[in-house]
């Protein structure tokens, strides 16, 4: 028998053993004990390996602590690569830049399934947790002040996308799983916004060019603190302007502060992450990979996996009313696969060929499917296309809007023109096929000038419509800005049996797992946000 704590027992038995041994010693000599020794030694050898047990449980292929630099790179990549399918099947289709005949994957085209809107929530266990770990790590070291500042700014970027999509979300108590806290409360969106402003401001001020940075681990700026400061103020500008419907005073305060701080106005300061078309899947642009693998598989095959095409609304807008008002980005974004007499297809960017598919028109493969345009594989879907996080184009449009609101002293028309120029110029980052000549930009502006004489709403519509085109590959921001301004005007589809009653969704729904796993906090948040967790409930700043 084995006893759990045998030390005491052993003494007595041991004594017994010895006395018996003494008595029987003589007789014992006839018996061979060698095998017993062998057995004992074996048994002991077995146990000697106990100390090796701890050694066995060290994974030779995994690192056991956080390296702030390497994890920061991951947090950057993971945030911008989050849920490409949600971005497309929800936002890109809701905002009528893409259409599909499929019913299954069409939350945005036909307002059906809610599936793909849940996935952004997983940011919590991905990029958001990663950036929090970087914040925690860099906080420990006073010399890491720039790293901490960059991490705080990037955390705001991740959080603002989440709260804009989902409204009230866990924030102040979130990300404490390592401390055994599994059920964080939901913060009011207004509080989250206030904290984000504070974070941006503090981080921007803290940046110090003389201190160490993330260097090469920073995909966006290589550690350049001046550019990080510009990014921080650009974010502040974006977030400030977000509040125009709900709290104009707060909006004005932060917009003015951001402009004073100095946002990105030069193309060279644009925030982007680089990708490569190499032998590694993870180095490819996540949206391109997603579009090609999951949908526009092969231009030689007329059957797209998810039945998508560029939307009629988007193509028609880009085409304009005439050839003169045409947006030159049409020929950068859109192609038509033209069947060749010799067999096979060729991607053609000719304006006359481009045709968009009407949203929610089809529930099966249309006979004329081949006649609709698709995203250009040589620009939009390049594997080495960058992901543009925030560029000068958006800032100029924000400045134009600040200007028409009277929050910025600059000329709205100038800002508008600068915005259009920057928005068109940034396509040159998408390879040779993306380059738009200055002539074309000038021509476009000539025939599509800023409506200086127009009403506020006309100006807002014009600026917002430009942002809609600019946001083609930045769909979360696109969705937020459209909800805020209501422009461009989109005619909702009303497909039989849709789940929104023919209205464009206003919010993402929080995954049901929260109702199970964080029930009380979830229900409290749900109750105070119109008591609903549906695609039609609205976030705080999206006041009706």
């Amino acid at each position, binding site marked *: 028998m*084995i*006893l759990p704590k045998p030390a005491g027992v052993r003494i007595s*038995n*041991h*004594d017994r053993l010895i006395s018996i*041994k*003494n008595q029987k010693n003589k007789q*014992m000599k006839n*018996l061979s004990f060698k*095998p*017993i*020794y062998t*057995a*004992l030694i*074996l048994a*002991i050898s*077995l*146990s000697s*390996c*106990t*100390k*090796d047990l701890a050694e*066995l*449980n060290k994974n030779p*292929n*995994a690192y*056991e*602590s*956080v*390296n702030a*630099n*390497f*994890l920061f790179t*991951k947090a950057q990549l993971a945030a911008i690569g989050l849920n490409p399918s949600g971005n497309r099947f929800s936002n890109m289709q809701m905002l009528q830049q893409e259409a599909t*005949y499929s*019913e299954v994957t069409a939350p945005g085209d036909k307002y059906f*399934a809610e599936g793909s809107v849940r996935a952004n929530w997983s940011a*919590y266990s*991905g990029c958001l947790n990663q950036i929090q770990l970087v914040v925690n790590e860099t906080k420990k070291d006073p010399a890491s002040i720039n790293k901490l500042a960059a991490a705080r700014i990037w955390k705001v970027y991740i959080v603002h996308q989440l709260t804009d999509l989902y409204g009230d*979300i866990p924030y102040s108590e*979130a*990300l*404490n*799983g*390592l401390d055994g806290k599994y059920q964080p409360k939901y913060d009011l969106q207004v509080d989250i916004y206030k904290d984000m402003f504070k974070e941006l401001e503090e981080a921007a001020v803290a940046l110090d060019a003389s201190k160490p940075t993330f260097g090469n681990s920073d995909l966006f700026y290589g550690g350049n603190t001046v550019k990080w400061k510009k990014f921080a103020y650009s974010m502040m500008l974006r977030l400030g302007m977000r509040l125009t419907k709900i709290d104009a005073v707060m909006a004005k305060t932060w917009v003015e502060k951001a402009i004073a701080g100095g946002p990105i106005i030069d193309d060279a300061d644009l925030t982007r992450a680089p990708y490569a078309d190499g*032998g590694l899947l*993870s180095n490819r642009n996540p949206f391109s990979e997603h579009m090609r*693998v999951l949908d526009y*598989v092969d231009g*030689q095959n007329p059957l797209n*996996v998810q039945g998508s095409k560029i939307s009629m609304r988007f193509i028609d807008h880009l085409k304009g009313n005439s050839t003169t008002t045409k947006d030159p980005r049409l020929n950068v974004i859109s192609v038509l696969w033209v069947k060749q007499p010799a067999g096979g297809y060729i991607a053609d960017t000719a304006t006359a060929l481009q045709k968009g598919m009407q949203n929610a028109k089809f529930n099966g493969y249309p*006979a004329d499917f081949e006649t609709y345009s698709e995203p250009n594989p040589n620009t939009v879907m390049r594997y080495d296309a960058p992901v543009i996080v925030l560029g000068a184009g958006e800032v100029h449009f924000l400045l134009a809007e600040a200007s028409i609101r009277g929050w910025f002293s600059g000329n709205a028309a100038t800002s508008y023109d600068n915005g259009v120029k920057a928005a068109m110029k940034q396509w040159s980052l998408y390879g040779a096929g993306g380059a738009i000549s200055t002539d074309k930009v000038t021509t476009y502006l000539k025939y599509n000038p800023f409506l200086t004489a127009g009403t506020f709403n006309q100006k807002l519509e014009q600026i917002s419509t430009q942002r809609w085109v600019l946001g083609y590959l930045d769909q979360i921001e696109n969705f937020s800005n459209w909800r805020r301004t209501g422009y461009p005007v989109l005619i909702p589809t009303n497909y*039989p049996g*849709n*789940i929104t*009653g*023919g209205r464009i969704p206003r919010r993402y729904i929080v995954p*049901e797992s*929260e109702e*199970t796993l964080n029930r009380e906090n979830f229900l409290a948040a749900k109750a105070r946000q119109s008591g609903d967790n549906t695609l039609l409930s609205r976030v705080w700043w999206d006041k009706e």
Partner: protein
Amino acid sequence: MNLFTKTEGSLGRVATLDIKPTIAGRFRFFNYRISQLISFNSILLVMKLTFILLLVIILNVRAEGYSQKVTYSGVNVPIEKVFSTIKKQTGYGFFFQKELISLAKPVTINAVNEDISDVLVAIFKDQPLEFSIKNKTILVLKRAAIVMTPQSNLVGIENLLEEKDIVVKGQISDAKGETLPGVSIKIKGTTVGATTDVDGRFTISVPDNNSILVLTYIGYQTQEVAVGDRTTLNIKLVAANTALTEVVVTALGISREKKALAYSVTEVKGEEFTQARENNVANAFAGKIAGVNVTGMSSGPGGSSRVIIRGNGSLSGNNQPLYVINGLPMNNTARSQAQGEGATILDRGDGISAINPDDIETINVLKGGPAAALYGSQAANGVILITTKSGKAQKGLGVEFNSNFTVGSPSMYPDLQYVYGQGLDGVKPLTKAQAISSGRLSFGAKMDGQPYVQFDGVMRPNSPVNVKDNWKNFYRPSTNLTNTIAFSGGNSAALTYRVSLSDLEAQAMEPGSSYARQTGNVSLRSVLGKRIIVETTLQYNVEKGKNRPGNGYADNTTSWATNLLANTVDIRNLAPGYDSNFNEVQWQQVPEAQNPYFVINRMGNTDSKNRFMGQASVQYNILDDLSVKVSGMRDIDRFDSMDYMPIGTAKRPRGLFNSGTSFVTKTTAQVLLNYNKTFFNDFQFTAMAGGNIERNVAESTRNFGAEFIVPDFISFSNLALQSATVGLSRFGQNSAFGSADIGYKSLLYFTFTGRQDWFSTLNPGNNSIFYPSFGTSFILSDAIKLPSIISFAKIRASWAQVGGATVSPYQINQLYSFEQGGHIGRPVQGTSSALSNPNLRPLTSTTYEGGVDMQFLNNRLGLDFTYYNRKTTDDILSTPIAVTSGYSSALLNVGELSNKGVEILLTGTPIKSNKFTWDVSYNAAYNKSTIEKLAPGLSTVGGVGVGRPYNTLRGRTYLTNASGVRVYNKLSGYEVQSPEVEYGQGVPPYTMGLANNFRYKSFSLNVLLDGKFGNVVQSGLSRYMYRFGLSKNTLPGRENGLTVTGVDQTGAPFTKTWPVDQMDTYYNNQASISPLTTSVFDGDFIKLRSAVLSYRLPVSKLQSLKIQSADISLVSRNPFILFSHITDFDPESAYTIGNNQGQSSNTIPRTREFGVNLIVRF
């Protein structure tokens, strides 16, 4: 006396065992070893082991009086007296017929401390008798030479006997035709008898031809044979079906009398697996053993099996039992691997699938209790002990040949609608584009037999092509051919051997898919001298899978098309699946749902397993009642796999490639000390102590890539996109254990065990657990006089604990891995969304068990009843947590899970005559699983709360208001989703099996029924059949539209009529809104699991061929589903062996198999 002296200055590093000088010298050596080898942390183990071993030595020293030496002097002493002295001094028993002894002469000997064998040789020297020693029994036989040598002194006596008596000769064998030595033969009503020799032959003189011979042999039914006018009797003994004399293999390979056991154990003989055979022998348990729930995968030949004993014991750990082969644990790693993309699963078999059924002697299932407790943590879910066949001492070479051939076809065909044909919106396709668009939609116009355009632009009639036709058109009959040849023999105990070779070739129903297994098995046993027994078993096998069928979802499967093709399209028109440029021809618009002919003709997968299992042991019988056995085993498994999609695959036009290699070893070393002793004649004492170490290493590399550069060169080197990952996983366990068994007068038995385990997967401080067990059994029928109807009654009870650490290596530490290749020259670190837990403790599984074994009516009817209550505490679970914590799961010692149940086994022989016998065996079990407790802060685990059964299937359904009226969404017109509700359990709580065995002359018929009840099955396939309009449930509304009525969310009456052209939209989305409502079914079923009709050929007429026996059988596996609520699929359509049971999806059809089996013995 101070036992432990800490060495000054080196804190806690060394402990010295201080032993008095008398024996210290002998122990010094290992003292030294202790100080050298043992860290302070492990000193406890050493202390315990030392203690156990010393204890054994004490017993051993006391036992010194019993040896194999004999001291005896005497002149003309009756031989019986010498026997009894020898028995006293050595413990050897004698076995003889009294009348034989009466022939013996008195002996004169003078032996001082001489070897027993020398003494025996001396006393038998001039006797008409001879002896043989078997284990510890000395068998006294009539000297064979006497009968054959008339010159002998005793001829006269023999002649005298022959003058008045009839001499009857014969041979006794068992049912399989193997001869039985040592069978006792008596003439009824007298004390005259004989014993069979090594070849099972006997000679006996009977007074007249009215004599009746009574044959008795341990483990066999006593048989009476009338001599009549025969002088040659070849008799077969029938194995006893009672618990009275049965000897079973229990923990660590120890054989024990079944009646002494305090727990339920079920033994299944190897031959039950060889006729109506399963390639994966674990699947053959189905229905045979109460409380054992077997789920064979619906994944073609060579697939895996899920075996669950008495319910799932752990919420997230491995719930499958431990497989032990010849006393040592084997690796049962499943090789299911999700293929590159999608959720498709290729089932590439598991560890147990490597075992050839022909090599199995017996399988014992230890469902719980003290026996399992000795195997430690991995035995918390029960143990399946496999004993492989070994050679037997016999004359000449024994050859056994087994050949088995079966043909399989689908087990059932779904019952679908064939009223409305291909199309959508109630319209049949008018263009090729529309035909492709609705390739898998049967929402078209009413079938009218008129031509319409199909996916390839060809006009074909709008008339039914049912799934049955398409299955028959696409699949082929599966075949399974197994040939095994085994040689065994050994002229004496000095060396016995068995060598077997087996070849299995299986063709799956899916064209091009095959599985092959070659097995070589060598078993050697040698008794060296008198005290050393060396045994070794080596098995090497090669398994090859080719184009294993994909399961689960659409990608990479043929079954998506065979099941879901629109109901007016003949699948053969999809062939060959590719065009002149080798591009896939799509039959519908979603490339994931592939052309099945493209899958079989252009895509591919291969895998191969090279498995070597070697084990060896040396047993040294130190004393007659003390032995030490050292054994080791290494189980080596190398697995290579590859799968690819070529250029031209619709969903991956440039192709995809996956390959991997893994090398898994499991090494076990064990030392066991066994001690047996009888005290005061009435007390039997058995003690065992041992230690075990186990080490597991899994190395793997996986190469993944896409985009072939050159077509049709399928190689990792031919890819534009490449990545490779390397894995190394190591874990181990050290254990010390011991047991003691005490028996009183074969009436009352007690068993105690204890085991301490140290786990590598937990952190020091929390990585060890001690657990004891206790059991008792009481033979009521021997203690008191029971009514004569009861032939045997035994009561048993046990309490056993098993500790476990169901954690994967490295799981307890938070890891931050580096991502392969980084990002364009920058290192990238990753995180895990799973929260680890360095403070994790071992879990404990505690089982109370009680039961009765009873035999009635002279053993014609038997009852074995067991109640058990198994509770798992501190269960280790990776439980989902709110992702807002930063992690999606946390690894916790959460709560408590219980499984309570009863098991009943009824055995009977309703008819028993010389010519006809009917044996029946019925087993039934009920298991109630309950989640008892969860960690603070957790209200559910996997959505299931406290008080509910584990593996409860939950999901939303359609909301109804208080009066039961359905609530509709006013905006959409669809049903509103309800909160999550319980649909039922995924694991059937009720299981049963009914085996009938009929024997008539040389024929026998064996029929096994298997049933499971009380569970639900969720079918992904059915959901798609619904969504795509194949299900009969989608017929309402097709003619005139469908009006739904109920209330809206505000409670106001709601009504909406869905027009005919929107029925497809309605049904499709209705199934999407509440996937479970349309696809969860009551999973009850009763199946005819197997049927075997055998005929024993009259080989005795073919003496010249030297055939001992030959049996030919017609066999069938899973021939009929006798009862099921499900009309769309086989209720057993599982495709994963994970804990998430109750899910079925898109799989190739399950098969029913018919065939023949031939066994010939030479």
